[in-house]
């Protein structure tokens, strides 16, 4: 695949670093409208910048006024007993405490509709020796109202933990997930979207990272008809760290969209993002948007983001748009890279010329493509899960 080799169409486009010269765009990502009230947002048409890649006609009216009720997942949680899992009213002070303010109409509608929120707390100074895994299974009837889901994950001061949220089943759902990493805490948060083929999900995740705290955020998106995840990150004080890793695999007809906005407002914080996706089958579509804003106060910022896509068959399409806004020259590093390549006929020929059948060759190459990021994830539960899922995708996939 060409992103693996340096063939012309595969060369990382726009791979460069930004030095001391600040660029001031016409309109900043920071100026995007936010509100808790759905009425403040007009119904998007699909021509707006933030909706232009999304198939509006497949959202089942979530962008306008589709009937919406409370989410009803079947939940199984398993992990260290120190973790506190509660179900609270949305009037609880922890709800909204991450600073999440909806930035689009579906998100604001879900905020209005949700009366209850799930809160997961890792108490201060607690170190978990095993991941806390929450399995959320949806089983909504095809004609049921859409779901509004609200959840809050709190990593207390100086705690250290890994939390996995795995979503599966059928639903039409809009979610708001708040992540609060308090001062000095270390949280690895994994969200696995392993939906059934008929699920439509629009989700917002917002993380607030405290002073000297670190969040490793891992997204694995494999299932669903339309999945759109909007991840925003803010820093509460200096020394915060965000590592965002994403793995996605889109099959025929699937639309998987990942959008990130990292808002560097505090000094000496770092962010490092790597998303990798594979696509196979007719009209498989993935979108990756990586917005990074370094504000004038955020001196000493170190940020890098990378997106790689591997297109395995004809008819699939990957869009990849990194954006970097820099308002101070006093930064350590700011860069991005993006490349989309095809599974290369020359690679296939080379492997086949050594006796390796086409399907084995394809698997070898896809495993190789994901190897670096899977190695970085480092959570055995997740790694095993991803590799199994990738094998399944390849086994059921189209052989071109």
């Amino acid at each position: 695949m060409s992103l693996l080799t340096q063939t012309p169409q595969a060369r990382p486009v726009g791979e460069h670093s930004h030095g001391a010269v600040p660029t001031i765009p016409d309109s900043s990502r920071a100026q995007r409208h936010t509100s808790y009230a759905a009425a403040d947002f007009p119904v998007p048409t699909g021509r707006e910048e933030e909706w232009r890649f999304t198939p509006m006609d497949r959202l089942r009216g979530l962008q306008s006024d589709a009937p919406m009720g409370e989410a009803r997942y079947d939940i199984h949680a398993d992990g260290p007993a120190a973790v506190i899992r509660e179900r609270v009213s949305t009037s609880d002070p922890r709800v909204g405490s991450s600073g999440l303010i909806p930035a689009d109409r579906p998100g604001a509608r879900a905020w209005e509709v949700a009366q209850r929120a799930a809160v997961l707390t890792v108490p201060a100074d607690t170190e978990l020796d095993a991941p806390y895994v929450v399995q959320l299974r949806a089983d909504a009837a095809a004609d049921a109202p859409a779901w509004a889901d609200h959840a809050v994950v709190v990593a207390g001061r100086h705690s250290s933990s890994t939390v996995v949220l795995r979503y599966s089943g059928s639903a039409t759902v809009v979610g708001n997930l708040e992540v609060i990493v308090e001062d000095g805490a270390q949280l690895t948060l994994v969200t696995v979207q392993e939906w059934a083929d008929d699920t439509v999900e629009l989700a917002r995740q917002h993380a607030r990272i405290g002073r000297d705290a670190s969040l490793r955020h891992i997204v694995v998106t494999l299932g669903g008809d339309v999945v759109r995840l909007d991840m925003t990150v803010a820093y509460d004080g200096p020394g915060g760290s965000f590592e965002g890793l994403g793995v996605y695999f889109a099959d025929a007809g699937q639309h998987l969209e990942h959008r990130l906005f990292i808002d560097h407002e505090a000094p000496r914080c770092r962010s490092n993002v790597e998303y990798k996706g594979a696509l196979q089958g007719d009209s498989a579509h993935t979108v990756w948007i990586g917005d990074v804003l370094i504000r004038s106060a955020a001196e000493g910022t170190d940020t890098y983001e990378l997106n790689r896509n591997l297109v395995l068959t004809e008819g699939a399409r990957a869009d990849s748009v990194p954006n970097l806004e820099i308002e101070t020259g006093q930064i350590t590093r700011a860069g991005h890279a993006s490349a989309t390549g095809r599974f290369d006929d020359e690679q296939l020929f080379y492997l086949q010329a050594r006796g390796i059948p086409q399907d084995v060759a394809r698997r070898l190459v896809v495993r190789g493509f994901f190897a670096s990021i899977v190695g970085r994830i480092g959570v055995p539960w997740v790694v095993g899960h991803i590799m199994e899922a990738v094998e399944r995708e390849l086994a059921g996939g189209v052989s071109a």
Partner: protein
Amino acid sequence: MTTLQITGLHVSVNTEEGAKEILRGVDLTVRSGETHAIMGPNGSGKSTLAYSIAGHPKYVVTSGSVTLDGSDVLTMSVDERARAGIFLAMQYPVEVPGVTVSNFLRTAKTAVDGEAPKLRTWVKDMKEAMGALRMDPAFAERNVNEGFSGGEKKRHEILQMELLRPRMAILDETDSGLDVDALRIVSEGVNRAKESTDCGVLLITHYTRILRYIKPEFVHVFVAGRIAEEGGPELAEQLEDEGYDRFLAGASV
């Protein structure tokens, strides 16, 4: 005893200006234990012959036949040809990032043999073969051809030849880009593989210097898509002295 038989082979490539004929009737027979050198000027179709036998999709066989012990090679897929015993050492081996040399070799060996190699003997065989080619053991954990120097790529090709033990090996300009030491090491590897398997070798080269290390019994001069002259090792010496001018004068390329 294995025989690769090429008869009246015509091959075209599709270009923007339409199909372009490159091979114009090649006849050649290579048997086990024999080494044939194919020599010729650039653009004469030497590499096309190599890739056509291996089954590269870019090349379209318009007429003629290629058989291995009577089996029709042209109807086989690329991997079937390799499993039948045909090996092509490539001039420009392709990078496969994320796939380590050791994983690649084990996968290829399993495919060619139809069963996974015994772990203990496999590790030993690999170590020995790499040592003989003066390859650092750390090489096994690098990604296939990624960041390899020209010499490392060629050693890696011959390492595959030694481990996969083909019945018929085609070496496409294996000597290009090698310094004298590397040329000697790589040539020794080819000779070792040939000795231990008694395979046939089709050695494609532009220069005569590799023939100091690998001795062909047959030399074929390739011009404008067909064999223009055939002979023994003395023909190579003659080419060394005279170059290809004699053949090019009358050729209509």
